[in-house]
């Protein structure tokens, strides 16, 4: 994929996610699917990075975890524990990989 092709694919991918976000926002005015929609957005962002060959093992692993918790609204305690774990992993990854790299 050329750089130009990658940028086009990025723009199209981001546009699709924006459609999802704004439509979800409208729905969330009346429904209770906020956490699900946010996790789905995270899922879509990781998928986009994978499509552009910019993802890594950490993100792929977190995507599996996001998918495991996103339908957990019937078990709020379990969902919170799962998300606490994911949040902690992201914090460690940020410190170890992105913050140190500058």
């Amino acid at each position, binding site marked *: 994929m050329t750089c130009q092709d990658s940028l086009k694919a990025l723009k199209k991918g981001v546009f699709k996610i924006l459609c999802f976000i704004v*439509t*979800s926002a409208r729905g969330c005015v009346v429904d209770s699917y906020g956490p699900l929609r946010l996790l*789905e957005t995270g899922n879509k962002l990781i998928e986009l990075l994978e499509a552009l060959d910019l993802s890594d093992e950490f993100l792929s692993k977190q995507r599996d975890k996001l998918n495991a918790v996103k339908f957990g609204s*019937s078990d709020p305690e379990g969902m919170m524990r799962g998300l606490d774990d994911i949040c902690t992993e992201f914090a460690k990854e940020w410190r170890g990989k992105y913050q140190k790299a500058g």
Partner: protein
Amino acid sequence: MSVSDAIKARRSVRQFADGEISKENILKLLDAGRLAPSGGNRQPWRFILVNEAENIEAIKLMSPGLYGVPSALIVICSFREKGKDSENGIYPIDPVMYMDIGMAAENIMLLAVELGIATCAVRSFSQKAVQSLLELPENVSPELIITLGYKAGEVKMPSKKPLEDLVYSERWGRTYDLPRFP
């Protein structure tokens, strides 16, 4: 297949395998919707069949609750008759039509079980966006999308409240003597 078996076997499927649904089966499903009961037999529904891939993709983009890649969609729309104020674009809203659309949807989904077709009812979508995509007139509004396809993998029944938690006898709070079902 008995109606009872179809009720027990129906699942909300969100992952689909490839495979086109025959026109014959599509027509059967649409007819099942047509034959549903409605208040005053008003039949306040119009069915938009979507089975072109790019149109399914566009609707999916504006439907956060639509998962997977279905083979087809039946978009059940409310059709509101023009009332005496319709010159101002005001159409009477009758809440009963939402119940009617629900009944039509269930007819479609239960027949689909018999035909070996998987479905999911989707309400999380932008009505305005889908109305625009389908070029619907102002008095026709998309209310429920039924995704159709062939299921990819088994779907477990989600937990359901026991019958004894849902049924009372003669008045609220009075327990009805029910046998325990598995």
